[in-house]
């Protein structure tokens, strides 16, 4: 049995009903008469555009690999145009996830016959917290390059083990030079800028076009990833911002958090139109867990999280029939009732919340992050859960050397 997926179904139905009202006989084998519907025409309407198989092939064929496939962002396919928000308290590896995403982006897909699995694009980082550490990026990049080259070398060894090894030492030297060259090329695709307040951030956004043009021309690569660490950095400063100048007219808009973020979102949207990129922004939770429970606080994060069937459908549609998602849904056992929905208190203006398309929430697996724990946490386990679109699964991961590993 075939299940047909027909485009424009409602149109057919409306027209068929109208014809029914008009007169009978409804169908004519000749067709073509005015006001009558021909049999072939009718058949053409109900004829399927494509089978599900063909559609799956089409959708999967066009699907580009996710721009940020590293855990914990691996469950969804993230593409240019998406705006991902990573929410979590301090010390939950938010910046680490950004760095991992950046490294995946700046690495090439393939370099001298070795597959690195990156996307060879440009990365721009707005460092609003001014805490980006190039050492960490370098370390992660080196770990990735080393891992791939070691694996590649061992594969080569296995292949050539039957043959007598001629000059193994020379081969390794060549790889070291190669990796240095690769390392430099990768780092040059990463751009960084510190900002100290929202207006500097806005000025940077407004002046970005010529810079971007130059970067794209220099590298002949497209901008793929924009990182913001962290978007809520100036919350307290912007909440207090006011213009000290006299009000000049009725159209004067007083400066406020809302107005600042309207401008930020507008500028980002404008840049997105000409340079489609994936935007990943981290957002610290500035209210500690104790203040979150205050009854007076509006807990927007809880809003709309209930799992209605429609929501699940929406999630399924969002996945674009990606078969991995269905596999996850069926193989993971149903979480127990205790599985909490990881919550946080939203403090960003609605205009930013509307701009965000994906949101993932991070939390430390045990212990409260806000307390001083006098024992050194040797195994820091972090939980991650997608809040938008809502996925039930809670991933746990640790950071080991230069990698994020799921456990």
């Amino acid at each position, binding site marked *: 049995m075939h299940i047909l997926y027909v485009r424009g179904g409602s149109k057919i139905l409306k027209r068929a009903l109208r014809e029914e009202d008009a007169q009978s006989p409804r169908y004519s084998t000749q067709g073509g008469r005015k006001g009558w519907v021909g049999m072939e025409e009718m058949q053409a309407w109900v004829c399927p555009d494509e089978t599900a198989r063909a559609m799956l092939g089409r959708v999967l064929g066009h699907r580009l690999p996710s721009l940020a496939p590293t855990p914990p962002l691996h469950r969804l396919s993230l593409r240019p145009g998406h705006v991902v928000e990573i929410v979590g*308290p*301090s*010390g939950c590896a938010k910046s680490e996830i950004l760095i991992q995403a950046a490294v995946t982006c700046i690495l090439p897909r393939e370099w001298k016959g070795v597959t690195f699995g990156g996307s060879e694009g440009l990365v*721009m980082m707005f460092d609003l917290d*001014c*805490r*980006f*550490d*190039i*050492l*960490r990026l*370098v*370390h992660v990049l080196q770990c990735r390059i080393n891992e791939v080259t070691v694996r590649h070398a061992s594969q080569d060894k296995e292949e050539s083990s039957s043959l007598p090894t001629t000059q193994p030492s020379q081969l390794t030297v060549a790889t070291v030079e190669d990796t240095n060259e690769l390392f430099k090329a990768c*780092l040059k*695709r*990463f*751009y*960084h*800028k*510190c*900002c*100290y*307040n929202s*207006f500097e951030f*806005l*000025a*940077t956004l*407004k*002046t970005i076009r010529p*810079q971007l043009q130059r970067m794209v021309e220099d590298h002949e690569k497209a901008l793929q990833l924009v990182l913001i660490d*962290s978007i809520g*950095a*100036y919350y*307290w*400063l912007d*909440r*207090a*911002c006011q*213009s000290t*100048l006299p009000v*000049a*007219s009725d*159209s004067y*808009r007083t400066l406020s958090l809302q*107005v600042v973020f*309207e*401008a930020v979102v*507008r500028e980002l949207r404008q840049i997105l139109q000409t340079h489609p990129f994936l935007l990943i922004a981290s957002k*610290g939770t*500035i209210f*500690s867990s*104790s203040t979150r429970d205050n009854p007076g606080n509006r807990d927007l994060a809880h809003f709309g999280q209930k799992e209605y069937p429609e929501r699940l459908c929406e999630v399924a549609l969002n996945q674009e029939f990606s078969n991995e998602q269905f596999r996850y849904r069926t193989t993971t056992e149903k979480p127990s009732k205790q599985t909490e929905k990881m919550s946080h208190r939203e403090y960003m203006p609605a205009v930013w919340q509307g701009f965000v398309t994906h949101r993932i929430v991070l939390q430390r697996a045990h212990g409260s992050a*806000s*307390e*001083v724990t*006098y024992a*050194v*946490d*040797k195994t820091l386990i972090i939980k991650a859960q997608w809040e938008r679109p809502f996925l039930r699964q809670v991933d746990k991961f640790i*950071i080991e050397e230069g990698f994020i590993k799921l456990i």
Partner: protein
Amino acid sequence: MPPLAALALPSLSPELLSFFATHGIVSVEDFLIRDIYQLPGLRAADSDKLRKAVTEVLAFLENGHASWRNGWDLFNNLEHNIRFLPTGYDSLDSLLQGGLREGTVTELVGASSCGKTQLCMQVSAHVAVRFGAMVAYIDTSNSFSSERLEQMLNDLLNSQREVEKTGAFMQALKNIVCYRAFDVYSMLILLQKLNTSIENHSQKTHSGRLRLIVVDSVSSVISPILGGNISQGHTLMMSIGQILKKLAVDNSIAVLTTNHTVTGESGNFKPALGESWKSVPHVRLLLRREIADGIYVASLTKHSSQACTKEAAFSIGRSGLQANVNHE
């Protein structure tokens, strides 16, 4: 930021300024938050002038800020221009990959009498002697003691000959400048003044350059203004955090701050400056004192480039931090 008229750009003609003013655009901030090309009531003839003016204002703004830097430049800059300032105690230095890094904010968190001030003074002494560099020591709780500093400097310079010693000693004392600020406003004024004076006198390359700013303690001026339903306190706190970071990052200065602890709801200790402040320091060291043993332990709880799993134990002697006598 200044009013647009104060920029004195030739393309910002009086007509254009008055056109902006009718739309409420007076200052640079107003200019930034509006979509200039979408302003209603612009005559077609003026659109070219407007475009020219916008380009000029944006170019002006771009000049005022640091430009985009690629990862390779950042890495090279770090390798060649950025130093680690040793704290004077080897285990702690290895915990911190070599000491306090220039261009970062390091924070010491601990209850009182955990060695926070001792560590601050010791680092100041070492930077003043080893690098001959200037140290700005901002004291907010009257805990800076010149007698203690003298002891530390004396022990540091002990190996030198008597003649050289006095000169070096005097020079080191001159290098450490102690400022006092007892409330958040005088602290902000002080940091602003420091920032402008650094901007005006471009830093000399070798000696006499300001390499370290110590704020002991930052929490004692901020915590009184926090709390309640008013967000003003948080704004002031983040302003201080912002200017400390700016001082550190823009001028490659190491900043060392201290944060005391308070009792939280469940009886546990927590830092006096909470969640929002956590976004300020690059490195956070937690200091604790083992009961009765005279042993102090420093553990790393936040670092921008390494895992936080290490600890260093020390005791405090006449010359400052030293290896733990009982155990080693």
